[in-house]
């Protein structure tokens, strides 16, 4: 197990290097530069040139890259232009909403998906089992920004029961905070739950053919116990991996959702960073998303090790 963790830390370094490098060059492809964005439309050419030079942006691209990489290795992710402070504290300041959205929607999706998937697998002739394929296909195919806009229209504009934008800190007013989180989480859950139901039903259907379930019934275990105590833990094993890797999609989805609902998390940071050409901020957020993604998948793999004794041997 220690070997796995060490290998993953090595992989993480490689991933961060590749993601950072790719991001560095990609953002320089975006037309315009931070000086123009910062100084606004009425700046003179001299002002722009001065600022460009003081930001070091007049250097050859490769020189900028080497400087950036050197600083990164020393733990310096640079400073954000729009916040006028180092990138790392800015990112950490905005972590809570993003984590709430991602973690909350994942947990809620899992809670919803497990019974739905079990029911669909255990009673293949039921109405729900027949509906599950089109329903999950709809959930997976629907673009989240579209669903977000529809929800805003229905619940925010027509019925006016839920706030449609903004974010309230949990510490200050938990009740209000939940209200603001409902719509964004619903949007995230719609996609994720569909993915979980589809995956889990598949592995559950396979698991239901297993012969050890017959043995369980042969010793008098009732169907409820057969499904939940015997089949489910084994069917969840492949689901762990899926949930882990779908977390990356969730983080990607969060960027869109935070923008639509004006939630001050990483997504909004990234969006603002891109519109104002805040290179260091963009790279910083991207790198942190990569870190979270790798760590979540490491946790999923470790969970798999704990859950499946057969893998643990080696």
């Amino acid at each position: 197990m220690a070997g796995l963790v060490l290998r993953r830390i090595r992989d993480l370094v490689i991933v961060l290097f590749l993601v950072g490098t790719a991001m560095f060059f990609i953002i320089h492809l975006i037309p315009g530069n931070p000086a123009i964005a910062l100084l606004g439309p009425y700046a003179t050419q001299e002002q722009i040139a001065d600022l460009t030079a003081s930001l070091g942006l007049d250097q050859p691209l490769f020189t900028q890259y080497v400087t950036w990489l050197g600083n990164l290795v020393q733990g310096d992710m640079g400073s954000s232009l729009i916040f006028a402070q180092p990138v790392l504290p800015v990112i950490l300041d905005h972590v809570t909403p993003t984590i709430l959205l991602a973690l909350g929607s994942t947990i809620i999706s899992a809670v919803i998906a497990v019974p739905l998937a079990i029911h669909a697998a255990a009673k293949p002739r039921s109405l729900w089992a027949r509906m599950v394929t089109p329903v999950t296909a709809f959930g997976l195919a629907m673009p989240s920004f579209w669903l977000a806009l529809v929800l805003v229209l229905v619940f925010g504009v027509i019925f006016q029961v839920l706030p449609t934008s903004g974010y309230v800190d949990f510490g200050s007013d938990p009740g209000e905070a939940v209200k603001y989180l409902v719509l964004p989480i619903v949007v995230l859950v719609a996609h994720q739950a569909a993915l979980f139901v589809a995956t889990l039903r598949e592995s559950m259907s396979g698991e239901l053919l297993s012969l050890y379930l017959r043995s369980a019934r042969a010793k008098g275990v009732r169907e409820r116990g057969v499904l939940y105590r015997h089949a489910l833990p084994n069917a969840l094993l492949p689901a762990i991996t899926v949930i882990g890797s779908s977390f990356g999609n969730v983080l990607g989805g969060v960027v869109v959702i935070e923008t639509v609902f004006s939630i001050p998390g990483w997504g909004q940071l990234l969006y603002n960073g891109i519109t104002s050409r805040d290179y260091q901020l963009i790279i910083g957020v991207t790198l942190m998303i990569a870190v979270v993604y790798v760590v979540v998948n490491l946790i999923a793999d470790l969970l798999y090790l704990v859950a499946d004794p057969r893998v643990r041997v080696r």
Partner: protein
Amino acid sequence: MSLLDVADFTVDLDGEEAPISLVRELSFSVERGEFLCIVGESGSGKTVAALSLMRLLEFTAPASQTGEALLDGEDLVAASQETMAGLRGRKIAMIFQEAMEALNPTKVIGAQLIEAVQQHPGELGESAGSGRRGLVEAARAKAVDLLRQVGIPDPVGCMGKYPHQLSGGMQQRAMIAMALMCDPELLIADEPTTALDVTIQAEILTLLVRLQRERGMACILITHDMGVAAEIADRVAVMYSGRLVEIGPVQEILASPRHPYTRALLECVPRVGLIAQKELKTIPGSVPHPGMHLPGCRFAPRCHNASDRCTSVEPALTPVPVAVGVGAAAAPPAAAFPPGERLAACWHPEPALQPQDAGESARFADALVAPSGGAEPYLVLDAVSKRYAASARSESLGSRRASGGVLAVDNASVSIAKGEFFGLVGESGSGKSTLGRLIAKLEAPTSGSISVGDVSVEQLKGRKRVRSFRRDVQIVFQDTTGSLDPRQTIGRSVSEPLRSLTDVRGEALEARAKELLETVGLPLAYFSKMPSELSGGQRQRVAIARAIACDPRLVVADEPTSALDVSVQGQIVNVLRRLQRELGLTYVFITHNLSLVLSVADRIGVMYLGALVEIADAATLVRAPAHPYTQVLLQANPDPHNPRRRTPDTAHPQALGLDSETALVDRTQGCRFRDRCPRRQERCDVESPELTERQPGQFAACHFPLN
């Protein structure tokens, strides 16, 4: 009143159109303390019947039961699933074939055993006092005790292990313990030993008999192996195509089968000590699907004695007179039961036979076995070894480090003559299949040399010479489904070696492929069929046709019949033997079936944990085995013609025990068999025995051989 009374028990599978009867009008009873064996080939409906009695089939298939099955007065057919859940485990328990699959892979053995009691708190709950914890503690104590009773060496440690950490035999023992947790009155065992090696099978059967006697429990054991039934049954029921065709006390069934199918089935089992001079007995055709509509007797199309009546009216199970002298001469050991009724479903039952002494003339004593010593050696193995690296990773890196890994074949030397039928027997993990693959150059030996004819296999270089070698040496595999491309027609599969190894093309190619089908006894119509349309036996014929397509000199047959029913096994072996006579083929026939190899092979090599421990001709091997392991194998081999009754005291812990982890045996020093050997002495611990000639033609690797 019998413990279990089954009458007109029918199992229907609801199909698209009319329901299909998988089991039809089964009637039998089981007494308390009785051991009933249900015998039948695949497709006979024996497992379906057992699962339906447990009412377990309907969870995985749209099945429904009619008729009556009274367990202690309670009708299992009419009971609700809720009632059944209360009965299962407590009154009627079941153990299954593949123990590995039948145990939950992610729960420890202890939890799975305790769970059985938690379903039926009953007496254990009361005696343990109140509370869930009390029950769990009482269940834990009982589980440990039962694991000890079923012969698990470290019961407390076993409680915390996962199924995959146990060997196959130990898994099966754990499952038996699980079934006994609530002291059932009826135990159904569905092929509990089929996946196990013979020596472990013998242990498990002895264990079952012991537990059954001790507890006065009723047992139904389902098996395809008449030999197993002969060793443990009080009564035997024979099923064919979903029907019960004969039932009676075991001695009578064995000595004087009245239904032609029972008789044929018995005759299909090769007789140890009786060289099959010409052909093994077979039953022509194959078992009709239980749902297939057939007027009259289901066996009539394959019966040697069928009349018009047989093909028009289905015979019912009716009493047949008990053979005079048979029942009396050999009283069953469980004589507490009145000699059971003898029933057979046949219009023309076979005449009652006297105990067999026919065929004696063909025994080894008279059948002079032609010694193969004079013939020129064709296949020569010289100190061949094969080591597999500990992991696939180091394997792919070509790691040559000797440490770690498994020595699958260790220093095997043998020479096989041209035209010889050489049998290679051994249990799983003995390295027999690896040796076969080395001979066919599917893998390269780690050291040693193999030569076929005048070709040295490891020095084969160049496409042309390898192709020539492939023409000469072919292999037939065990798994008939896996070894044929499911998307290629039979004709294409058979002609493929011709296309890749010879220059035969066009019409000549097709003509040759058709000729090959004919040679192995398949109708020409099969040329354009797909593998899925064929039965297992037919697919194996195709594999043989493919193997002999380029006129090979040597064929390695790796367990070619072990996936097949006994009535089909003979057909395949007969084809191989005919080809041997007609084409002068040399065979290396790999099998775990001792009865089979002893009756067809010229010489036999016995392998144990990678090494050849004895080589001799069949007659010598049966009459005077030199290696103790050979003797252990012979004693464990279930043989309906000469049954060794398993009774609680036939266990030989010294010789048979230790079916645990053979992989852990230290092979670097001393004799590899010493831990299981009854003749072990100090020398065995330090010096590994070489294969030496004991008497002309008999080689054994043992310091203290048996003769």
